[in-house]
Protein backbone atom coordinates (compact mmCIF):
# COMPACT_ATOMS: atom_id res chain seq x y z
CA UNK A 1 0.00 0.00 0.00
CA UNK A 2 2.79 2.37 1.00
CA UNK A 3 4.74 1.41 -2.11
CA UNK A 4 1.67 2.09 -4.20
CA UNK A 5 1.25 5.57 -2.74
CA UNK A 6 4.95 6.25 -3.28
CA UNK A 7 4.66 5.05 -6.87
CA UNK A 8 1.67 7.26 -7.51
CA UNK A 9 3.58 10.20 -6.09
CA UNK A 10 6.62 9.38 -8.24
CA UNK A 11 4.49 9.55 -11.37
CA UNK A 12 2.87 12.76 -10.16
CA UNK A 13 6.22 14.23 -9.04
CA UNK A 14 7.62 14.57 -12.52
CA UNK A 15 4.56 16.50 -13.70
CA UNK A 16 4.61 18.64 -10.57
CA UNK A 17 8.20 19.62 -11.42
CA UNK A 18 6.90 20.84 -14.76
CA UNK A 19 3.95 22.62 -13.18
CA UNK A 20 6.12 24.37 -10.59
CA UNK A 21 8.04 25.97 -13.42
CA UNK A 22 5.04 26.83 -15.60
CA UNK A 23 2.15 27.28 -13.18
CA UNK A 24 1.45 30.87 -14.03
CA UNK A 25 1.22 30.42 -17.78
CA UNK A 26 -0.69 27.16 -17.36
CA UNK A 27 -3.18 28.89 -15.09
CA UNK A 28 -3.48 31.97 -17.29
CA UNK A 29 -4.16 29.97 -20.45
CA UNK A 30 -6.77 27.83 -18.76
CA UNK A 31 -8.63 30.89 -17.52
CA UNK A 32 -8.98 32.66 -20.86
CA UNK A 33 -12.12 30.94 -22.14
CA UNK A 34 -13.97 30.71 -18.79
CA UNK A 35 -13.45 34.43 -18.27
CA UNK A 36 -14.64 35.16 -21.81
CA UNK A 37 -17.76 33.06 -21.20
CA UNK A 38 -18.30 34.89 -17.95
CA UNK A 39 -18.17 38.27 -19.64
CA UNK A 40 -20.13 37.29 -22.76
CA UNK A 41 -22.87 35.25 -21.08
CA UNK A 42 -22.84 36.38 -17.47
CA UNK A 43 -22.69 40.11 -18.18
CA UNK A 44 -23.46 40.53 -21.87
CA UNK A 45 -26.27 38.17 -22.76
CA UNK A 46 -27.58 37.41 -19.30
CA UNK A 47 -27.92 40.89 -17.84
CA UNK A 48 -31.35 41.19 -16.24
CA UNK A 49 -32.30 37.58 -17.05
CA UNK A 50 -33.69 35.29 -14.35
CA UNK A 51 -33.50 31.48 -14.40
CA UNK A 52 -35.93 29.84 -11.97
CA UNK A 53 -35.89 32.88 -9.72
CA UNK A 54 -32.09 33.17 -9.67
CA UNK A 55 -30.27 35.98 -11.47
CA UNK A 56 -28.37 34.71 -14.49
CA UNK A 57 -24.88 35.52 -13.21
CA UNK A 58 -25.47 33.41 -10.08
CA UNK A 59 -26.96 30.69 -12.29
CA UNK A 60 -24.16 30.58 -14.83
CA UNK A 61 -21.26 30.83 -12.38
CA UNK A 62 -21.37 27.16 -11.23
CA UNK A 63 -21.67 26.10 -14.88
CA UNK A 64 -18.52 28.04 -15.72
CA UNK A 65 -16.73 26.52 -12.73
CA UNK A 66 -17.81 23.08 -13.99
CA UNK A 67 -16.56 23.67 -17.51
CA UNK A 68 -13.29 25.06 -16.16
CA UNK A 69 -12.82 21.90 -14.13
CA UNK A 70 -13.49 19.91 -17.28
CA UNK A 71 -11.18 21.69 -19.68
CA UNK A 72 -8.34 22.29 -17.21
CA UNK A 73 -8.35 18.69 -15.95
CA UNK A 74 -8.75 17.14 -19.37
CA UNK A 75 -6.00 19.26 -20.89
CA UNK A 76 -3.87 18.98 -17.75
CA UNK A 77 -3.91 15.21 -17.87
CA UNK A 78 -3.78 14.69 -21.62
CA UNK A 79 -1.62 17.37 -23.22
CA UNK A 80 1.78 16.41 -21.83
CA UNK A 81 1.01 12.71 -21.68
CA UNK A 82 0.16 12.32 -25.33
CA UNK A 83 3.24 14.25 -26.41
CA UNK A 84 5.43 12.23 -24.03
CA UNK A 85 3.90 9.03 -25.34
CA UNK A 86 3.89 9.74 -29.07
CA UNK A 87 6.76 12.12 -29.71
CA UNK A 88 9.35 12.01 -26.94
CA UNK A 89 8.63 8.38 -26.03
CA UNK A 90 9.48 9.32 -22.46
CA UNK A 91 6.29 7.59 -21.32
CA UNK A 92 8.02 4.32 -22.23
CA UNK A 93 10.25 4.94 -19.21
CA UNK A 94 7.22 4.53 -16.97
CA UNK A 95 6.16 1.39 -18.81
CA UNK A 96 9.64 -0.13 -18.46
CA UNK A 97 9.77 0.59 -14.73
CA UNK A 98 8.50 -1.74 -12.01
CA UNK A 99 5.64 0.65 -11.25
CA UNK A 100 2.17 -0.90 -11.58
CA UNK A 101 -0.21 0.17 -14.31
CA UNK A 102 -2.70 1.14 -11.60
CA UNK A 103 -0.25 3.61 -10.07
CA UNK A 104 0.65 5.00 -13.50
CA UNK A 105 -3.00 5.70 -14.34
CA UNK A 106 -3.75 7.30 -10.97
CA UNK A 107 -0.51 9.31 -10.98
CA UNK A 108 -1.14 10.61 -14.48
CA UNK A 109 -4.76 11.44 -13.60
CA UNK A 110 -3.73 13.29 -10.43
CA UNK A 111 -1.78 15.93 -12.31
CA UNK A 112 -5.02 16.60 -14.20
CA UNK A 113 -6.85 16.92 -10.89
CA UNK A 114 -4.21 19.29 -9.53
CA UNK A 115 -4.29 21.48 -12.62
CA UNK A 116 -8.08 21.29 -12.78
CA UNK A 117 -8.40 22.39 -9.15
CA UNK A 118 -5.88 25.18 -9.61
CA UNK A 119 -7.93 26.70 -12.44
CA UNK A 120 -11.42 26.03 -11.08
CA UNK A 121 -10.56 27.37 -7.64
CA UNK A 122 -9.29 30.53 -9.35
CA UNK A 123 -12.63 30.86 -11.16
CA UNK A 124 -14.45 30.03 -7.94
CA UNK A 125 -12.72 32.95 -6.26
CA UNK A 126 -13.75 35.21 -9.14
CA UNK A 127 -17.28 33.83 -8.66
CA UNK A 128 -17.34 34.57 -4.94
CA UNK A 129 -16.31 38.13 -5.63
CA UNK A 130 -18.82 38.70 -8.45
CA UNK A 131 -21.78 36.75 -7.18
CA UNK A 132 -22.46 36.94 -3.44
CA UNK A 133 -25.22 34.31 -3.83
CA UNK A 134 -22.61 31.58 -4.29
CA UNK A 135 -22.39 29.21 -1.31
CA UNK A 136 -18.99 27.62 -0.79
CA UNK A 137 -19.15 24.41 1.26
CA UNK A 138 -17.07 21.28 1.74
CA UNK A 139 -19.58 19.46 -0.48
CA UNK A 140 -18.88 21.97 -3.26
CA UNK A 141 -15.17 21.22 -3.03
CA UNK A 142 -15.88 17.48 -3.00
CA UNK A 143 -17.99 17.76 -6.17
CA UNK A 144 -15.30 19.89 -7.76
CA UNK A 145 -12.61 17.29 -7.00
CA UNK A 146 -14.87 14.56 -8.33
CA UNK A 147 -15.49 16.52 -11.51
CA UNK A 148 -11.77 17.11 -11.99
CA UNK A 149 -11.07 13.41 -11.44
CA UNK A 150 -13.62 12.33 -14.05
CA UNK A 151 -12.18 14.59 -16.73
CA UNK A 152 -8.57 13.90 -15.77
CA UNK A 153 -9.16 10.16 -16.19
CA UNK A 154 -10.95 10.92 -19.45
CA UNK A 155 -7.89 12.91 -20.56
CA UNK A 156 -5.50 10.12 -19.60
CA UNK A 157 -7.57 7.64 -21.56
CA UNK A 158 -7.67 9.78 -24.69
CA UNK A 159 -3.93 10.51 -24.43
CA UNK A 160 -3.26 6.77 -24.22
CA UNK A 161 -5.26 5.80 -27.30
CA UNK A 162 -4.87 8.80 -29.59
CA UNK A 163 -2.53 8.27 -32.54
CA UNK A 164 -1.51 11.80 -33.49
CA UNK A 165 -1.43 15.40 -32.39
CA UNK A 166 -3.99 16.19 -35.07
CA UNK A 167 -6.37 13.59 -33.66
CA UNK A 168 -6.02 15.17 -30.23
CA UNK A 169 -7.23 18.58 -31.38
CA UNK A 170 -9.95 17.03 -33.54
CA UNK A 171 -11.17 15.17 -30.48
CA UNK A 172 -11.22 18.37 -28.43
CA UNK A 173 -13.24 20.13 -31.09
CA UNK A 174 -15.70 17.29 -31.59
CA UNK A 175 -16.27 16.24 -28.00
CA UNK A 176 -14.99 18.75 -25.45
CA UNK A 177 -16.21 21.91 -27.15
CA UNK A 178 -19.82 20.74 -27.75
CA UNK A 179 -19.93 19.44 -24.19
CA UNK A 180 -18.92 22.90 -22.97
CA UNK A 181 -22.04 24.43 -24.42
CA UNK A 182 -24.61 21.65 -24.18
CA UNK A 183 -24.24 20.29 -20.68
CA UNK A 184 -26.52 22.67 -18.82
CA UNK A 185 -23.61 24.99 -18.21
CA UNK A 186 -25.25 28.09 -19.72
CA UNK A 187 -28.94 27.16 -19.67
CA UNK A 188 -31.29 25.07 -17.57
CA UNK A 189 -32.00 21.58 -18.90
CA UNK A 190 -35.51 21.70 -17.45
CA UNK A 191 -36.73 23.65 -20.47
CA UNK A 192 -35.62 20.97 -22.94
CA UNK A 193 -37.64 18.11 -24.50
CA UNK A 194 -37.24 14.72 -22.79
CA UNK A 195 -35.38 13.09 -25.70
CA UNK A 196 -32.74 15.83 -25.74
CA UNK A 197 -32.43 15.63 -21.96
CA UNK A 198 -31.71 11.90 -22.12
CA UNK A 199 -28.85 12.51 -24.53
CA UNK A 200 -27.43 15.37 -22.48
CA UNK A 201 -27.50 13.27 -19.30
CA UNK A 202 -25.10 10.90 -21.03
CA UNK A 203 -22.48 13.65 -20.89
CA UNK A 204 -20.40 13.79 -17.69
CA UNK A 205 -20.26 17.58 -17.70
CA UNK A 206 -24.06 17.74 -17.34
CA UNK A 207 -23.74 15.98 -13.99
CA UNK A 208 -20.85 18.19 -12.91
CA UNK A 209 -22.70 21.40 -13.61
CA UNK A 210 -26.02 20.17 -12.15
CA UNK A 211 -24.31 19.03 -8.93
CA UNK A 212 -22.17 22.14 -8.60
CA UNK A 213 -25.10 24.44 -9.26
CA UNK A 214 -27.29 22.70 -6.70
CA UNK A 215 -24.62 23.01 -3.98
CA UNK A 216 -23.62 26.54 -4.92
CA UNK A 217 -27.19 27.83 -4.91
CA UNK A 218 -28.30 25.85 -1.86
CA UNK A 219 -30.77 23.69 -3.81
CA UNK A 220 -31.46 20.00 -3.01
CA UNK A 221 -28.37 17.99 -3.91
CA UNK A 222 -28.77 15.66 -6.93
CA UNK A 223 -27.13 12.55 -5.48
CA UNK A 224 -27.89 10.64 -8.67
CA UNK A 225 -25.72 13.05 -10.61
CA UNK A 226 -22.95 12.61 -8.07
CA UNK A 227 -23.26 8.84 -8.43
CA UNK A 228 -23.16 9.27 -12.19
CA UNK A 229 -19.86 11.16 -11.82
CA UNK A 230 -18.53 8.30 -9.72
CA UNK A 231 -19.66 5.91 -12.45
CA UNK A 232 -17.92 7.97 -15.14
CA UNK A 233 -14.72 8.01 -13.08
CA UNK A 234 -14.77 4.21 -12.73
CA UNK A 235 -15.59 3.80 -16.40
CA UNK A 236 -12.72 6.03 -17.59
CA UNK A 237 -10.35 4.44 -15.09
CA UNK A 238 -11.16 0.95 -16.44
CA UNK A 239 -10.77 2.23 -19.99
CA UNK A 240 -7.29 3.57 -19.09
CA UNK A 241 -6.30 0.22 -17.60
CA UNK A 242 -7.43 -1.65 -20.73
CA UNK A 243 -5.61 0.82 -22.98
CA UNK A 244 -2.38 0.49 -20.95
CA UNK A 245 -2.55 -3.29 -20.82
CA UNK A 246 -2.85 -3.34 -24.58
CA UNK A 247 0.06 -0.94 -24.90
CA UNK A 248 2.44 -2.98 -22.75
CA UNK A 249 3.01 -6.70 -22.24
Amino acid at each position, binding site marked *: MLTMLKDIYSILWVDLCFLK*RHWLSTLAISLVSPLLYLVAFGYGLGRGVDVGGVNYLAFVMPGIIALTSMSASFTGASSKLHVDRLFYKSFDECL*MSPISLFSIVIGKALIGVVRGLLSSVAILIVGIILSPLLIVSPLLILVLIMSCLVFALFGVFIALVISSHQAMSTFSNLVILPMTFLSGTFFSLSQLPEAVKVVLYLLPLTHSSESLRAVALGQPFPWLSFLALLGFALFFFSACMVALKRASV
Partner: protein
Amino acid sequence: MEEFIVTENLTKTYGTVQAVQNLNLKVHSGEIFGFLGPNGAGKTTTIRMMTTLTKPTSGRVWVGGFDVVKEADKVKNVIGVVQQHLSLDRDLTVKENIEFHGRLHHLSASERRKRINELLDYVELTDCADRMVDTLSGGMKKRAAIVSSLMHKPKVLFLDEPTVGLDAQTRRRMWDLLRRLNLDGTTIFLTTHYIEEAEALCQRVGIMHHGKLIALDNPLELRKKLGLVTVETLVNGKETRYQYFADREAAKRYVQNLGSDAKTVIIRDSNLEDFFVEQTGEKVGGN
Protein backbone atom coordinates in the same frame (compact mmCIF):
# COMPACT_ATOMS: atom_id res chain seq x y z
CA MET B 1 29.72 -18.78 -20.80
CA GLU B 2 26.52 -17.72 -19.08
CA GLU B 3 23.78 -16.57 -21.42
CA PHE B 4 22.05 -13.38 -20.37
CA ILE B 5 19.60 -12.91 -23.22
CA VAL B 6 18.07 -15.82 -25.07
CA THR B 7 15.49 -15.68 -27.82
CA GLU B 8 13.69 -18.70 -29.21
CA ASN B 9 11.93 -18.38 -32.56
CA LEU B 10 11.11 -14.80 -31.63
CA THR B 11 8.68 -13.34 -34.16
CA LYS B 12 6.80 -10.07 -34.48
CA THR B 13 4.27 -9.44 -37.20
CA TYR B 14 2.54 -6.14 -37.92
CA GLY B 15 -0.36 -6.91 -40.26
CA THR B 16 1.33 -8.59 -43.20
CA VAL B 17 4.78 -7.24 -42.37
CA GLN B 18 7.09 -9.64 -40.59
CA ALA B 19 9.26 -7.24 -38.61
CA VAL B 20 11.21 -10.02 -36.90
CA GLN B 21 11.17 -13.63 -38.09
CA ASN B 22 12.13 -16.67 -36.01
CA LEU B 23 15.02 -14.99 -34.27
CA ASN B 24 17.25 -17.34 -32.31
CA LEU B 25 19.92 -15.48 -30.44
CA LYS B 26 22.05 -15.82 -27.33
CA VAL B 27 23.83 -12.89 -25.73
CA HIS B 28 26.47 -13.75 -23.16
CA SER B 29 26.85 -12.17 -19.76
CA GLY B 30 29.48 -9.46 -19.78
CA GLU B 31 29.82 -8.97 -23.53
CA ILE B 32 29.16 -6.04 -25.81
CA PHE B 33 26.81 -7.41 -28.39
CA GLY B 34 26.07 -5.47 -31.55
CA PHE B 35 22.89 -5.83 -33.52
CA LEU B 36 23.71 -4.61 -36.98
CA GLY B 37 21.51 -3.92 -39.95
CA PRO B 38 19.98 -1.20 -42.12
CA ASN B 39 16.99 0.84 -40.96
CA GLY B 40 13.86 -1.28 -41.00
CA ALA B 41 15.75 -4.56 -40.47
CA GLY B 42 13.89 -5.29 -37.22
CA LYS B 43 16.50 -4.13 -34.73
CA THR B 44 14.31 -1.73 -32.76
CA THR B 45 11.39 -4.15 -32.71
CA THR B 46 13.71 -6.79 -31.25
CA ILE B 47 14.92 -4.40 -28.54
CA ARG B 48 11.33 -3.44 -27.73
CA MET B 49 10.42 -7.09 -27.30
CA MET B 50 13.45 -7.70 -25.08
CA THR B 51 12.60 -4.70 -22.92
CA THR B 52 8.91 -5.54 -22.31
CA LEU B 53 7.57 -2.72 -24.49
CA THR B 54 6.28 -4.87 -27.34
CA LYS B 55 4.65 -8.25 -27.07
CA PRO B 56 6.03 -10.94 -29.41
CA THR B 57 3.60 -12.44 -31.91
CA SER B 58 5.18 -15.82 -31.23
CA GLY B 59 8.33 -17.31 -29.81
CA ARG B 60 9.91 -16.45 -26.47
CA VAL B 61 12.60 -14.28 -25.00
CA TRP B 62 14.38 -14.48 -21.67
CA VAL B 63 16.45 -11.72 -20.11
CA GLY B 64 18.52 -12.50 -17.03
CA GLY B 65 16.74 -15.85 -16.85
CA PHE B 66 13.27 -14.28 -16.73
CA ASP B 67 10.58 -14.68 -19.37
CA VAL B 68 9.95 -11.19 -20.73
CA VAL B 69 6.21 -11.72 -21.15
CA LYS B 70 5.41 -13.75 -18.03
CA GLU B 71 7.90 -12.17 -15.65
CA ALA B 72 8.03 -8.66 -17.04
CA ASP B 73 8.36 -7.13 -13.56
CA LYS B 74 11.53 -9.08 -12.82
CA VAL B 75 12.97 -8.25 -16.23
CA LYS B 76 12.34 -4.55 -15.61
CA ASN B 77 14.67 -4.66 -12.60
CA VAL B 78 17.65 -5.97 -14.53
CA ILE B 79 17.43 -3.90 -17.70
CA GLY B 80 18.41 -0.35 -18.49
CA VAL B 81 17.29 1.10 -21.80
CA VAL B 82 18.50 4.05 -23.84
CA GLN B 83 16.06 4.51 -26.65
CA GLN B 84 16.85 5.88 -30.06
CA HIS B 85 14.44 8.74 -29.51
CA LEU B 86 15.83 10.28 -26.37
CA SER B 87 13.22 9.38 -23.84
CA LEU B 88 14.18 12.18 -21.47
CA ASP B 89 11.63 14.72 -20.35
CA ARG B 90 12.75 17.87 -22.16
CA ASP B 91 10.94 20.20 -19.80
CA LEU B 92 13.00 19.07 -16.82
CA THR B 93 16.61 19.49 -15.79
CA VAL B 94 19.16 16.71 -16.18
CA LYS B 95 19.07 16.07 -12.44
CA GLU B 96 15.28 15.96 -12.29
CA ASN B 97 15.18 13.45 -15.13
CA ILE B 98 17.67 11.21 -13.38
CA GLU B 99 15.93 11.62 -10.06
CA PHE B 100 12.63 10.64 -11.70
CA HIS B 101 14.24 7.49 -12.98
CA GLY B 102 15.50 6.66 -9.51
CA ARG B 103 12.00 7.16 -8.13
CA LEU B 104 10.52 4.91 -10.81
CA HIS B 105 12.89 2.20 -9.65
CA HIS B 106 12.15 2.62 -5.95
CA LEU B 107 15.49 4.07 -4.88
CA SER B 108 15.40 5.81 -1.52
CA ALA B 109 16.10 9.55 -1.32
CA SER B 110 19.63 9.02 0.01
CA GLU B 111 20.40 6.34 -2.59
CA ARG B 112 19.15 8.66 -5.29
CA ARG B 113 21.34 11.54 -4.13
CA LYS B 114 24.40 9.32 -3.95
CA ARG B 115 23.81 7.65 -7.32
CA ILE B 116 23.06 10.92 -9.11
CA ASN B 117 26.34 12.48 -8.00
CA GLU B 118 28.31 9.32 -8.73
CA LEU B 119 26.86 8.85 -12.20
CA LEU B 120 27.01 12.47 -13.28
CA ASP B 121 30.65 12.39 -12.33
CA TYR B 122 31.13 9.10 -14.19
CA VAL B 123 29.90 10.58 -17.48
CA GLU B 124 31.34 14.06 -16.80
CA LEU B 125 28.03 15.85 -16.66
CA THR B 126 28.25 17.24 -13.13
CA ASP B 127 28.37 20.82 -14.41
CA CYS B 128 25.18 20.31 -16.39
CA ALA B 129 23.10 18.84 -13.56
CA ASP B 130 20.78 21.82 -13.32
CA ARG B 131 20.50 22.60 -17.02
CA MET B 132 17.28 21.93 -18.89
CA VAL B 133 17.61 18.88 -21.12
CA ASP B 134 16.57 20.92 -24.13
CA THR B 135 19.64 23.15 -23.85
CA LEU B 136 22.15 20.27 -24.01
CA SER B 137 24.11 19.17 -27.06
CA GLY B 138 23.29 15.83 -28.69
CA GLY B 139 26.15 14.00 -27.02
CA MET B 140 25.29 15.41 -23.59
CA LYS B 141 21.66 14.37 -24.01
CA LYS B 142 22.76 10.84 -24.84
CA ARG B 143 25.01 10.72 -21.79
CA ALA B 144 22.20 12.05 -19.62
CA ALA B 145 19.92 9.33 -20.98
CA ILE B 146 22.58 6.73 -20.21
CA VAL B 147 22.96 8.02 -16.67
CA SER B 148 19.26 7.85 -16.03
CA SER B 149 19.06 4.31 -17.40
CA LEU B 150 21.88 3.30 -15.04
CA MET B 151 20.27 4.61 -11.85
CA HIS B 152 19.00 1.22 -10.69
CA LYS B 153 22.27 -0.60 -11.55
CA PRO B 154 20.90 -2.72 -14.40
CA LYS B 155 22.79 -5.87 -15.35
CA VAL B 156 22.26 -5.24 -19.04
CA LEU B 157 22.09 -1.96 -20.87
CA PHE B 158 20.18 -1.79 -24.15
CA LEU B 159 21.11 1.04 -26.47
CA ASP B 160 19.20 1.64 -29.67
CA GLU B 161 21.46 3.46 -32.15
CA PRO B 162 23.46 5.21 -29.39
CA THR B 163 25.56 7.39 -31.66
CA VAL B 164 23.15 8.42 -34.41
CA GLY B 165 23.53 12.12 -35.12
CA LEU B 166 26.69 12.55 -33.03
CA ASP B 167 29.88 14.02 -34.48
CA ALA B 168 32.95 11.80 -34.83
CA GLN B 169 34.68 13.02 -31.68
CA THR B 170 31.58 12.71 -29.53
CA ARG B 171 30.98 9.27 -30.94
CA ARG B 172 34.42 8.12 -29.86
CA ARG B 173 33.86 9.45 -26.35
CA MET B 174 30.59 7.53 -26.29
CA TRP B 175 32.40 4.36 -27.30
CA ASP B 176 34.88 4.86 -24.47
CA LEU B 177 32.04 5.33 -22.03
CA LEU B 178 30.36 2.12 -23.18
CA ARG B 179 33.64 0.20 -22.94
CA ARG B 180 34.16 1.53 -19.44
CA LEU B 181 30.65 0.48 -18.43
CA ASN B 182 31.25 -2.94 -19.88
CA LEU B 183 34.54 -3.32 -18.01
CA ASP B 184 32.68 -2.40 -14.84
CA GLY B 185 30.44 -5.40 -15.38
CA THR B 186 27.45 -4.29 -17.46
CA THR B 187 26.41 -6.46 -20.38
CA ILE B 188 25.71 -4.24 -23.37
CA PHE B 189 23.30 -4.86 -26.21
CA LEU B 190 23.37 -2.17 -28.83
CA THR B 191 21.90 -1.72 -32.26
CA THR B 192 23.67 0.23 -34.91
CA HIS B 193 23.83 0.72 -38.62
CA TYR B 194 27.38 2.04 -38.36
CA ILE B 195 29.78 -0.70 -39.39
CA GLU B 196 32.76 0.90 -37.71
CA GLU B 197 30.83 1.12 -34.46
CA ALA B 198 30.13 -2.60 -34.45
CA GLU B 199 33.76 -3.34 -35.33
CA ALA B 200 35.19 -0.95 -32.77
CA LEU B 201 33.01 -1.98 -29.86
CA CYS B 202 31.42 -5.36 -30.16
CA GLN B 203 32.80 -8.73 -29.19
CA ARG B 204 30.06 -10.35 -31.23
CA VAL B 205 27.59 -9.06 -33.78
CA GLY B 206 24.30 -10.32 -35.11
CA ILE B 207 23.43 -9.06 -38.57
CA MET B 208 19.77 -8.48 -39.36
CA HIS B 209 18.28 -8.21 -42.81
CA HIS B 210 14.53 -7.90 -43.48
CA GLY B 211 13.69 -9.25 -40.03
CA LYS B 212 15.98 -12.25 -40.27
CA LEU B 213 19.29 -12.92 -38.55
CA ILE B 214 21.69 -13.67 -41.40
CA ALA B 215 24.94 -13.93 -39.43
CA LEU B 216 26.09 -14.22 -35.82
CA ASP B 217 29.74 -14.26 -34.78
CA ASN B 218 32.60 -12.01 -33.79
CA PRO B 219 33.56 -9.44 -36.43
CA LEU B 220 36.89 -11.11 -37.21
CA GLU B 221 35.34 -14.53 -37.84
CA LEU B 222 32.74 -12.99 -40.14
CA ARG B 223 35.48 -11.21 -42.10
CA LYS B 224 37.47 -14.45 -42.30
CA LYS B 225 34.54 -16.14 -43.99
CA LEU B 226 34.78 -13.54 -46.71
CA GLY B 227 38.55 -12.95 -46.75
CA LEU B 228 40.46 -10.52 -44.56
CA VAL B 229 41.69 -8.39 -47.44
CA THR B 230 39.60 -6.50 -49.95
CA VAL B 231 40.79 -5.31 -53.35
CA GLU B 232 38.78 -2.50 -54.89
CA THR B 233 39.34 -2.01 -58.58
CA LEU B 234 37.93 0.81 -60.68
CA VAL B 235 37.22 -0.71 -64.08
CA ASN B 236 36.92 1.58 -67.14
CA GLY B 237 36.74 4.57 -64.84
CA LYS B 238 33.18 3.93 -63.65
CA GLU B 239 32.52 0.53 -62.11
CA THR B 240 34.11 -0.55 -58.84
CA ARG B 241 34.75 -4.25 -58.40
CA TYR B 242 35.38 -5.89 -55.04
CA GLN B 243 37.45 -9.04 -54.60
CA TYR B 244 38.29 -10.73 -51.31
CA PHE B 245 41.45 -12.57 -50.34
CA ALA B 246 42.69 -14.51 -47.33
CA ASP B 247 45.83 -12.35 -46.98
CA ARG B 248 47.77 -9.48 -48.54
CA GLU B 249 50.06 -11.78 -50.51
CA ALA B 250 47.15 -13.31 -52.38
CA ALA B 251 45.69 -9.87 -52.96
CA LYS B 252 48.98 -8.54 -54.38
CA ARG B 253 49.29 -11.50 -56.73
CA TYR B 254 45.80 -10.76 -58.02
CA VAL B 255 46.58 -7.08 -58.53
CA GLN B 256 49.81 -7.82 -60.46
CA ASN B 257 47.83 -9.89 -62.95
CA LEU B 258 45.13 -7.27 -63.54
CA GLY B 259 44.59 -6.03 -67.08
CA SER B 260 45.30 -2.44 -68.18
CA ASP B 261 41.61 -1.37 -68.05
CA ALA B 262 41.76 -1.47 -64.24
CA LYS B 263 43.10 1.96 -63.29
CA THR B 264 42.65 2.66 -59.60
CA VAL B 265 43.38 -0.18 -57.25
CA ILE B 266 42.95 -0.12 -53.47
CA ILE B 267 44.09 -2.91 -51.21
CA ARG B 268 42.61 -2.68 -47.69
CA ASP B 269 41.39 -4.77 -44.77
CA SER B 270 37.92 -6.14 -45.37
CA ASN B 271 35.14 -4.98 -43.05
CA LEU B 272 31.63 -5.94 -41.98
CA GLU B 273 30.22 -3.71 -44.68
CA ASP B 274 31.86 -5.97 -47.28
CA PHE B 275 30.39 -8.96 -45.50
CA PHE B 276 26.92 -7.45 -45.40
CA VAL B 277 26.97 -6.43 -49.06
CA GLU B 278 28.15 -9.84 -50.18
CA GLN B 279 25.49 -11.56 -48.11
CA THR B 280 22.57 -9.37 -49.13
CA GLY B 281 23.52 -7.33 -52.16
CA GLU B 282 22.63 -4.19 -50.19
CA LYS B 283 24.55 -1.62 -48.17
CA VAL B 284 24.04 -1.34 -44.42
CA GLY B 285 23.83 2.42 -44.24
CA GLY B 286 22.33 2.58 -47.69
CA ASN B 287 18.95 4.09 -46.93
